[in-house]
């Protein structure tokens, strides 16, 4: 499994009081690949996500992100917005967090805040209508339009995001994360609540993000059809520890994974895993 790692999680531990949510978890995500983090409910997947994206400060361990230019950033030392701003890690949320009262286009414009702030001379140049800023704004609108096209929402660009159907909101949230031009895209259950057709469209979108833009993706997902189809590598967690790691094929046939997912009834487990193939 040696390759060009973008994310290296080393002995990550997260405690909440006496509860150990994640213990000594180590895994790596490869550059320009899709890595899936799966496991039963309560396994600690979202906690890992929150540690990587700076919403939690890990109790122990290291999370290293290596940019394309070789710069290494210790994510556990950055916090809050800096992970998105400096380390270029973007994320979506399990329960969608769009700006419901703003239009789809505005949502994507907010995502480009830091670039636009610099272009607007921290507001002062923008206030007087400097051409530099107007150019940057046009560029930002172009990028947003491009993403609306990719997620098939261009005709709804001027509608309030809160009015969108569930599946459309999921796609818009991914587009918003991508508008930050991230090095690593973290998706927390992007297929939750989607029907079969929408899931297929999502898989296609994620593959195109990987293939065309070369963005590395880390995702948490329960929908096995999505996970098995698009993942290059899968990390399986249960009770805060890693129980398996490998290609979709390896993981699917791992008895420990099957046991973790469905108790010990291996026959039933095998049936579910098959359905995802």
């Amino acid at each position, binding site marked *: 499994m040696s390759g060009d790692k973008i994310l290296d999680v080393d002995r990550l531990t997260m405690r909440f009081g006496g509860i150990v949510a994640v213990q000594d978890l180590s895994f790596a995500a490869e550059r320009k690949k899709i890595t899936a983090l799966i496991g039963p409910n309560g396994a600690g997947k979202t906690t890992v996500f929150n540690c990587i994206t700076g919403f939690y400060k890990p109790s122990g361990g290291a999370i290293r992100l290596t940019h394309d230019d070789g710069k290494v950033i210790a994510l556990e030392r950055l916090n809050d917005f800096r992970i998105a*701003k400096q380390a270029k890690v973007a994320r979506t949320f399990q329960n969608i967090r769009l700006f419901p009262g703003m*239009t789809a286009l505005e949502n994507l414009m907010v995502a480009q805040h*830091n670039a636009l702030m610099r272009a607007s001379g921290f507001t002062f140049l923008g206030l007087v209508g400097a051409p530099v800023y107007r150019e940057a704004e046009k560029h930002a609108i172009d990028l947003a339009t491009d993403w609306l096209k990719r997620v098939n929402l261009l005709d709804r660009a001027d509608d309030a995001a809160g009015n969108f159907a569930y599946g459309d909101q999921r796609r818009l949230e991914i587009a918003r994360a991508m508008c930050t031009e991230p090095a690593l895209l973290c998706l927390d259950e992007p297929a939750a609540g989607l029907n079969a057709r929408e899931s297929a469209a999502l898989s296609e979108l994620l593959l195109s993000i990987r293939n065309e833009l070369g963005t590395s993706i880390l995702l948490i997902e329960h929908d096995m059809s999505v996970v098995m189809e698009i993942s290059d590598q899968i990390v399986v967690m249960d009770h805060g520890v890693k129980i398996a790691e490998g290609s979709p094929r390896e993981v699917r046939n791992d008895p420990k994974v099957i046991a973790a997912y469905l108790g010990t009834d291996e026959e039933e487990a095998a049936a579910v895993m098959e359905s995802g193939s």
Partner: protein
Amino acid sequence: MNTPSTNTTKPATGIRALLKTAFVNALIALVLFSLMVGIRTEAGSDGQLTYWTRFGEVASLVAAVFGGSIVIELLRQWIGSTGAEKLVPAAVQSGMSFVGRYLAPALLIFTLLVPVIFYDQRYILDLAILVLTYVMLGWGLNVVVGLAGLLDLGYVAFYAVGAYSYALLATNFGWSFWVCLPLAGILAAFWGVLLGFPVLRLRGDYLAIVTLAFGEIIRLVIINWQDLTGGPNGVSSIPRPSFFGIPLDNSDNGFAARLGIEYSPTHRIVFLFYLILALALLTNWVTIRLRRLPIGRAWEALREDEVACRALGINTTTTKLTAFATGAMFGGFAGAFFATRQGFISPESFTFQESALVLAIVVLGGMGSQLGVALAALAMIGGFELFRSLETYRMLVFGMAMVLIMIWRPRGLIGHRAPTVYLTKAQAISSDLVKEGHG
């Protein structure tokens, strides 16, 4: 006057249901008023308790509730439940949208002409200046509450900082209004940042309480720092503003003498009117402009969802601070204007009531809407004057009017939100989707 049968899923119709609702309401009124109004007690001449009954008044009150319930119920059935399509006939609707489109420019033109139309009515000019001061304060607070969604109950603190900055700089150093005006704004913004740093980690109710306390602290400091501020006596003989260096007075090199026209004290009032109008329009222009810049969009995004903002790499602390500082700066400008208009300021002008009034203007106007805030300021300040003849009942009428407006328009006079950028067509966003902010 309460109508307990607000059954929206299956509206009660028919004369029977109507009478039943009215009867229940009348019964509640009877229970309430029989003791509160029906029996009057007073200390007699020797200190003993005397009482007498006033059943006539009770009867008329209950009858009023009975009649009122029927009227309200009929109105409710005519208007329909909120969100119903049949609300208003199409003709009225198109008329309203026509009015909506031209209301703001028409209001602006009318405002520009006010000193011409009411030149010899000093009372109206003074009232107009007062209304415009509150329009400006409302627009300033709108940045903090309406756009960034930060509930600020201590806005008057920045108004006070601005007023005292001008008053003290002008009386102690003799600096002109035009030098002090930006300084007052900068100082108020500075205090906004100073307050913001420790408190902006708080959210919602907690933020509201701390800002409330900050407003009181500033007022108490002003009262107690007697050497500097004159304490409760205030600062008097604050210089009047000049027309860019030319005094607006009766002297030989005054404004009137230079133009060769007869001096009139109204000149100064008219000048003050246009001064506050210019300041208010500046506030409006800057706010509209900021909304379309990344900083303004970040404010609104912060109101919508703070966690998502952080995930997008937006520094929420500095974003909140800039909102606070911008709002405070406009409050400071308004304060400097207030000081130069009054010529005298004291801590009494900067009580919590002012903060509450400005906040009420913002909420009533529709948080985030510039036109709504202006209309609300006109209604609140102008309307309050309108009811002056009612004397002590003024507050009662006023409170009732506010309750009615908030029932009719829970999200303010203008509740919808206009997008800041669009590809093909800007369409208003319904108030149901727009968040109010949570801290």
